[in-house]
């Protein structure tokens, strides 16, 4: 290998490794964001789901998902375990994107999904759902499925639709089938607010996610290819930053208009929606386009959240659909209208629309089938008493914020046996004989 070629490869792959680590760090953001938005009795459950999404998901993506992606993309069974060196860097780079999509779902099904149902769904998402999505797009050996159908390629630079749109639609579908948390809706259909337990964690998680997002978007561009890719790197960094800022401002403005107050959580969610909005198109969007995409992605958030909550009556606990789903779709569809260069608007828009429908339709269908099967077999939701007690104790046997009981042998008030497996602390059953 010529010295220049070797240096270029070293430069690009060093960059890929660094951004993979940045994208991995987004799991810290998701964990904090979701933990803050759930009640104190469900925090450990939410944290466990985030830990297991990464752990189960990345192992499954290594053993099965990468093989399915390559098989469905026309490249034969090319699972990552038979790769080496550079192939494993490529695999890790793909895996951190895949797991970002997978972890979005946990926020939508918070507070009532059974852990085993969630983990089983994560397995299937990492093994089949996401690999099929990238087989249509990034992993396709020939032209992508959209180009085959419409003659124009589908544009999704860093995964605005492929990762975030997919995750948001999957979350909404799972939450719809699972049903709302107890007490979320009254008999007449009106909604009750269930505040999360820590605004501080939610905002910390938001900003950690935003930090990792630079890896996600800017890291999708290589550093060097027939010259230093400064034009692309700079544009992606600029549009990502401007859209993030405008997302926060857009959501703040609409929340202010609707309620007369600048709602903190809407500002935080809006910042992420702005990032999601630009993620499909950060490399083509003009300066003014970045303002438009970010502003609209933020502004739609309070409106879409109300629609999901009040009209669809779906309990999307962490607002994952307005943040990842609708914002991702919006940004993907806006591509030809906000591009800096000349884009044939009609054909590009049709290609984007077909891509959104294919990815959204596949994700919705596969997710619906899986959660319906869980529901029919009674494996989707925890019992009513476990939900009331909180998933921390009933699913994990832990309390996130324990008060008393440290020290010597703990004695229960009625002299019965202390159970920590969560199985029999049920108020409605008499298990303490």
């Amino acid at each position, binding site marked *: 290998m010529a010295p220049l070629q070797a240096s270029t490869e070293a430069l690009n792959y060093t960059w890929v490794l660094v951004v993979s680590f940045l994208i991995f760090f987004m799991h810290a953001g998701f964990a904090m964001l979701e933990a803050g938005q759930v009640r104190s009795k469900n925090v450990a459950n939410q944290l466990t789901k985030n830990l297991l999404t990464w752990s189960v998901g990345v192992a499954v993506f290594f053993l099965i998902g990468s093989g399915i992606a390559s098989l469905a993309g026309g490249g034969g069974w090319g699972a990552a375990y038979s790769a080496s060196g550079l192939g494993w860097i490529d695999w890790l780079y793909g895996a951190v994107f895949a797991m970002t999509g997978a972890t979005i779902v946990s926020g939508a099904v918070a507070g009532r999904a059974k852990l085993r149902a969630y983990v089983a769904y994560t397995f299937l998402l990492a093994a089949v759902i996401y690999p099929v999505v990238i087989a249509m797009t990034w992993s396709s050996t020939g032209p992508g499925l959209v180009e085959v159908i419409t003659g124009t390629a589908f544009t999704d630079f860093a995964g605005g639709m492929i990762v975030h749109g997919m995750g948001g639609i999957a979350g909404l579908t799972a939450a719809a089938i699972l049903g709302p948390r107890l007490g979320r809706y009254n008999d007449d259909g009106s909604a009750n*607010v269930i505040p999360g337990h820590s605004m501080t964690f939610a905002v910390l998680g938001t900003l950690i996610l935003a930090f990792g997002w630079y890896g996600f978007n800017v890291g999708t561009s290589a550093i060097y290819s027939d010259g230093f890719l400064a034009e692309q790197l700079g544009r992606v960094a600029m549009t990502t930053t401007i859209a993030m800022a405008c997302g926060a401002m857009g959501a703040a403005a609409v*929340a202010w208009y*609707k309620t007369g107050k600048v*709602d903190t*959580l809407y500002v935080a969610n809006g910042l992420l929606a702005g990032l999601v909005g630009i993620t499909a198109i950060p490399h083509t969007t003009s300066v003014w386009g970045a303002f438009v995409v970010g502003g609209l992605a933020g502004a739609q958030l309070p409106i879409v959240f*109300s629609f999901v909550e009040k009209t669809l009556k779906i309990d999307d606990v962490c607002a994952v659909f307005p943040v990842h789903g609708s914002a991702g779709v919006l940004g993907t569809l806006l591509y030809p209208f906000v591009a800096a260069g000349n884009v044939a608007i009609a054909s590009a828009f049709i290609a984007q629309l077909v891509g959104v429908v294919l990815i959204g339709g596949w994700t919705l269908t596969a997710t619906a089938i899986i959660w319906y099967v869980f529901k029919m077999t009674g494996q989707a939701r925890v019992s009513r008493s476990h939900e009331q007690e909180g998933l921390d104790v009933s699913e994990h046997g832990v309390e996130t914020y324990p008060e008393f009981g440290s020290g010597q042998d703990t004695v229960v008030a009625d002299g019965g046996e202390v159970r920590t497996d969560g199985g029999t602390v049920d108020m409605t059953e008499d298990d303490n004989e």
Partner: protein
Amino acid sequence: MSESDDQDIKMVVAVVRPDKLGDVKEGLAEVGAPSLTVTNVSGRGSQPAKTGQWRGEEYVVDLHQKVKIECVVAEIPVDDVVDAIRESAHTGEPGDGKIFVIDVDDAVQVRTGDSGPEAV
């Protein structure tokens, strides 16, 4: 009562605004009753309900954050203690709180084992 019956032990329980705690501590120290126990509590009385907000939606909060002060006295006249709390916790708005005076049967000091008014 274990020892002398000439001095009653009284517990003054006051529920006041959290931001008045510093003033109440100062007021109690001035009348010679600096010992107290403080708990964060929620409750409702004449103070109107307020609204909280989560992701742009309002919900009613009718339990207000207060602090409960428990102050047990024997030698100090209980009226002085009550007046000190009332004056230092007063703003004149609904939600200033309540003060209750309760008879205490006995007291024991953990360190010395003293009981009765001596223990207070």
